């Protein structure tokens, strides 16, 4: 890979050990993908998590004097002080999370602790070159916004934020953004849960590639797109898709494919979505907890939970959690949503992901969630998936029928 004089000097350690290591990782990735050069990025999102590997890498860079050259937001860890009051958190684990948080602060990242920063804390514009990790974030910025990012790992995104550049390959090039697979949607898509099912099904069917959805007649709303992105990239490794007529690079089917429509195609009807839903409904009967907000709930979704819980009481044996960003929580408090949810016996918690060790207390419990991504992480003994309304109903009754 060609490196400029400045990049060579970074790689030789003239800008400190932290930048040297970040550069070394980016050059190794560039070599693996036959990149010819590095390109500047305008922003990055690092899929931080409160885990050991995360702590190692951010401390390595921060101790080496590195700091972010472009705005670099962070994924959820968890609200350590809050959870230490609620659950017993092993000391070593809280220490890891604390060090992760300090590490990202020292490196000058945006302490968003949020997995959907692209709607509030760190928003790319059309055509920007960026490095966004996190399963829903990568496809969202590529497909919905039309910024350009590869499927970044947490560390490669952080390294790119520190250097302000990323190796140029893959989805940075227009020709690699063309659709590879036609998905004819004949299913009825009425709410964000239908998009969840669609994403989960299509990700599993295709695995890797760029699906082009046709047949969607109503403009999908932000929450529907967030869910589609998250689930496509959970069951599959899908960094980009097109929706004919709605996403920026797909005004026509021909433009989405940049030419001929390939032979590979699938048709999704109500039948397939129903089957996926049944497959995800792993249990019925008594439930111990409800987990919402994977990906983080938007203000609209927190408001919807409040509307469903208004004047109701959550069953006393059920814990009820809504995960969101600090930004959204602040607004939800201002709007009165948080107090409605708390009066019903639920919690709205910021900065926290379902895949964090703070939930250890639920290891042997049965949970219900509206997110197959949340269920996939298997933080509970059993996690069944249902529509939000059914999750709330189960919370009130204490059981899932």
């Amino acid at each position, binding site marked *: 890979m060609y490196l400029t004089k400045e990049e060579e000097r970074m790689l030789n350690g003239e800008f400190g050990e932290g930048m040297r290591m970040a550069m070394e*990782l980016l050059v*190794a*990735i560039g070599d*693996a*993908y036959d990149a010819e050069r590095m390109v500047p990025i305008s922003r990055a999102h690092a*899929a931080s*998590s409160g*885990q*050991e*590997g*995360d702590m*190692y*890498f951010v401390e390595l860079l921060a101790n080496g004097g590195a700091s972010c050259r472009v705005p670099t937001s962070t*994924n959820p860890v968890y609200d350590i002080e809050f959870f230490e009051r609620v659950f017993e958190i092993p000391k070593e684990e809280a220490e890891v999370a604390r060090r992760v948080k300090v590490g990202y602060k020292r490196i000058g990242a945006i302490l968003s602790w949020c997995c959907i920063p692209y709607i509030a804390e760190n928003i790319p514009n059309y055509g920007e070159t960026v490095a966004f*990790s*996190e*399963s829903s974030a*990568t496809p969202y910025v590529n497909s919905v916004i039309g910024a350009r990012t*590869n*499927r*970044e*790992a*947490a*560390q*490669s*995104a952080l390294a790119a934020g520190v250097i302000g550049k990323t190796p140029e390959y893959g989805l940075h090039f227009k020709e690699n953004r063309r659709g590879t697979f036609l998905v004819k949607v004949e299913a009825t898509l009425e709410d964000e849960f239908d998009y969840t099912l669609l994403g989960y099904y299509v*990700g599993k069917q295709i*695995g*890797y590639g760029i699906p082009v959805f046709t047949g969607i007649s109503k403009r999908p709303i932000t929450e529907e797109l967030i869910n589609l992105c998250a689930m496509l*990239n*959970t*069951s*599959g*490794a899908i960094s980009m898709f097109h929706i004919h007529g709605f996403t920026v690079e797909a005004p026509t089917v021909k433009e989405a494919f940049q030419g001929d429509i390939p032979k590979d195609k699938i048709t999704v009807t109500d039948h397939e979505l129903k089957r996926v839903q049944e497959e995800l409904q792993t249990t019925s009967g008594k439930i111990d907890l409800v987990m919402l907000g994977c990906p983080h709930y938007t203000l609209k979704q927190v408001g919807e939970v409040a509307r469903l819980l208004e004047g109701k009481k959550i069953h006393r044996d059920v814990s009820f959690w809504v995960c969101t960003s600090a930004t959204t929580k602040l607004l939800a408090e201002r709007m009165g949503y948080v107090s409605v949810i708390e009066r019903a016996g639920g919690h709205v918690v910021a900065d926290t992901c379902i*895949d964090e060790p703070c939930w250890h207390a639920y290891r042997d419990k049965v949970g219900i969630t509206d997110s197959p991504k949340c269920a*996939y*992480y*298997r933080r509970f003994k059993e996690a069944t998936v249902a529509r939000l309304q059914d999750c709330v109903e189960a919370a009130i009754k204490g059981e899932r029928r």
Partner: protein
Amino acid sequence: MKHIILKGRTIVEGRRKAQALVSSKPISFLGGVDPANGKIIEKNHDLYGECIKDKILCFPHGHGSTVGSYVLYSLARKNLAPKAIVNQMADPVVVVGAIIADIPMVDQVDIKRIKTGDMVEVDAYKGVVKILKRRMS
């Protein structure tokens, strides 16, 4: 037996010899692999319950969480990582994990020709996989 040589592309350099563990399904290291013991825990996965430690792990590509790279690194620190990774198509999340954990890796290999239990040498300097001995069946 004459060694079968499968050509691929170098991702992370190194040379390792071990038994192959082959999957026809993609792997997500976060959620799909138990970081405490290196076992595959994704439900309905064809390697469910298998341990990836010290194996030549062959699978089509990665999927799921972009935090998977950290899990590979943690597995390596606990000596639970595979000896080498062979993919059909390199997913950046697996690539980054292999780089920071220093696990030799090649991609663009026709993994269907490798069977679980085969003794395999990955020469990731040259980007090739040699099947040294077929599993006794």
